[in-house]
């Protein structure tokens, strides 16, 4: 193909426009990722850091326990359980965020124009305060001696405080609270684009409210549901602060496991391997989804 000078200039201008972002991504995303991947194949140093000896040990350690005496490998599901637990926790968080977020997003999207922006702004208000501080505040709120339990006992509804802090429920509440806006905003954007005349049309054609929701509204706001779910699920899966503070670090989640390897355990290669495995699983799932979507779209046409 022959490209004219004008086309070349055009292409150069485009690359120039992109270059700051590209530079940033290369320096602070691609390079660190490469370091993590490389580290996961090295040997841990005694006091942290790595020794430059190539080894699969970190990945072996993920699935097997090495016998102290005869070095045989025994399958161990301890780490898989952590991943599974994190996965379930993230899934529950995503579903809960959707159930809470959908009515909220619907409400905002159907408000008059002027009020809409006020509400969208309100949704983002929590982000004006540091996440750590918000999570600690949440901890104070739900702990056994906290105002929530105090109020419930004082009102006579319960005799014993409900254990929320330092349980999986506490972690769940923390995660939902943290990631709810990530669900609400994409859902809001999708619902805002939704043509409400379609609701009238289906209502007119003998559909009841439940069918309208299932057959008309949900299929047409799928992009928003998917975006919101990804934005909640992926960070929940690797979240660190909520499990650490609200879970008390009792039931390890992926985030805690990785953090532990770089702090107490001083096993950087294993921490890196845990991160690489998490990333690989998420990326594979995403790619499968995208390919499926592409196939669906092809079928449409």
């Amino acid at each position, binding site marked *: 193909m022959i490209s004219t000078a004008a086309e070349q200039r055009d292409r150069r201008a485009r690359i120039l426009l992109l270059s700051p972002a590209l530079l940033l991504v290369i320096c602070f995303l691609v390079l660190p990722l490469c370091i993590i991947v490389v580290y996961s194949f090295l040997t841990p140093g005694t006091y942290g850091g790595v020794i430059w000896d190539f080894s699969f040990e970190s990945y072996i350690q993920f699935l097997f326990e090495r016998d102290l005496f005869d070095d045989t490998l025994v399958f161990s599901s301890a780490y898989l359980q952590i991943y599974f637990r994190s996965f379930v926790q993230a899934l529950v968080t995503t579903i809960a965020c959707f159930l809470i977020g959908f009515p909220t997003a619907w409400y905002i999207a159907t408000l008059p124009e002027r009020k809409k922006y006020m509400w969208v702004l309100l949704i983002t208000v929590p982000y004006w305060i540091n996440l750590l501080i918000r999570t600690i505040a949440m901890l104070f709120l739900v702990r056994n001696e906290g105002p929530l339990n105090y109020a419930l006992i004082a009102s006579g509804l319960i005799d014993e405080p409900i254990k929320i802090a330092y349980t999986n429920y506490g972690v769940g509440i923390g995660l939902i609270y943290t990631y709810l806006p990530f669900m609400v905003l994409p859902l809001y954007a999708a619902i805002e684009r939704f043509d409400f005349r379609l609701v009238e049309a289906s209502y007119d054609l*003998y559909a009841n409210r439940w069918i309208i929701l299932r057959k008309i509204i949900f299929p047409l706001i799928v992009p928003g549901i998917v975006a919101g779910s990804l934005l909640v699920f992926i960070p929940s899966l690797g979240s660190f602060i909520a499990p650490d503070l609200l879970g008390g670090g009792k039931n390890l989640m992926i985030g805690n496991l990785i953090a532990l390897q770089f702090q107490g355990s001083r096993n950087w290669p294993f921490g890196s391997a845990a991160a690489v495995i998490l990333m690989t699983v998420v990326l594979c799932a995403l790619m499968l989804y995208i390919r499926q979507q592409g196939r669906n779209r092809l079928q449409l046409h």
Partner: protein
Amino acid sequence: MASSVFAVNGISITKTWGAGSSAVTALNDVSIAIEDNEFFTLLGPSGCGKTTLLRCIAGFEQLTAGRILLFDEEIDHLPPNKRPVNTVFQHYALFPHMSVADNISFSLRMLKRGDQEIRQTVGKMLDLVHMSEYADRRPTQLSGGQQQRVALARALASHPKVLLLDEPLSALDLKLRQQMRVELKQLQEETGITFIFVTHDQEEALTMSDRIAVMSDGRIQQTGAPVEIYEHPVSHFVADFIGETNFLEAAIQSVDIDSAHCRLVGGARLTARLTTPKQPGDRVTISVRPEKVLLTAKSGVSGNRDGRIDGIVERLVYLGTDTHYQVRLDQQTTLLARIQNSAESAKFGENDAVSVVVDQSACSVLAD
């Protein structure tokens, strides 16, 4: 009339939005009786309440007061999905994630009809609107006219008792619009379903309707056959909204059964059709359609005979098939005459003295 059952019978329908001083009245005590198998048009400018009335019949709006009967059954308490009426929406509102066939079968699936019946009906509907080859397409892959046809088929599929059409042609270009008018009328005759058609386009209303209700300010101004509405408007609004017209100020001199002898301000005498009760001596306005008048050279006879008004051609505009003459009758009054440019029609120039000949059938005394 007592024995016939109306397809739609609206009784004293009032619809207001808001409350107190900011309340807006969209429909003000509207009563309307639409007969079975009728192509009925609600015609009026935007904001006249015609769409609100349609939405009240469909069930999208709750009545503030009044009742709506559908074939003698009260429906105003029912939600839209329980009313056996369907709507063709202004912008079609086709389901973009469904094929044409799935759009058409939607209502049948909601009504839990059998697969066999659904398949047959969809086939029949596709045939009816000449869209058989497009059954598997998505609405976004269709042109405006094709989407229009699918919307019609979708609304007709469950064989509703009444079909409501909310300005369905307004999004189409002129050529297509003219073609769809014919098709719509045919469709109504083939299916035998009562059509209630909302439009602001008087030409659309005149060409398709069996009867027209002209609306303004939340009230029905006049109901009647197109000829009736056009040739004998009862009010300023109807006369002005439908086609061009001349308004002549006059005083009634004597009244017959259905006509009134009037005297214009300039002294000329006219006999005009009378549909509202008036007394001799009343000051009235007479509507005269510009294409119903004739121009002749001024007769030698002095004074004005009945139906003949002298004037001077002030301006003329040549329009190909017609010529528009603006004739000054007296100091305050001019009259527009639209004369067809046929071989035998006389030609006049500016400042020619002419006589305007107005037949009784061309004049209507307006109620207001």
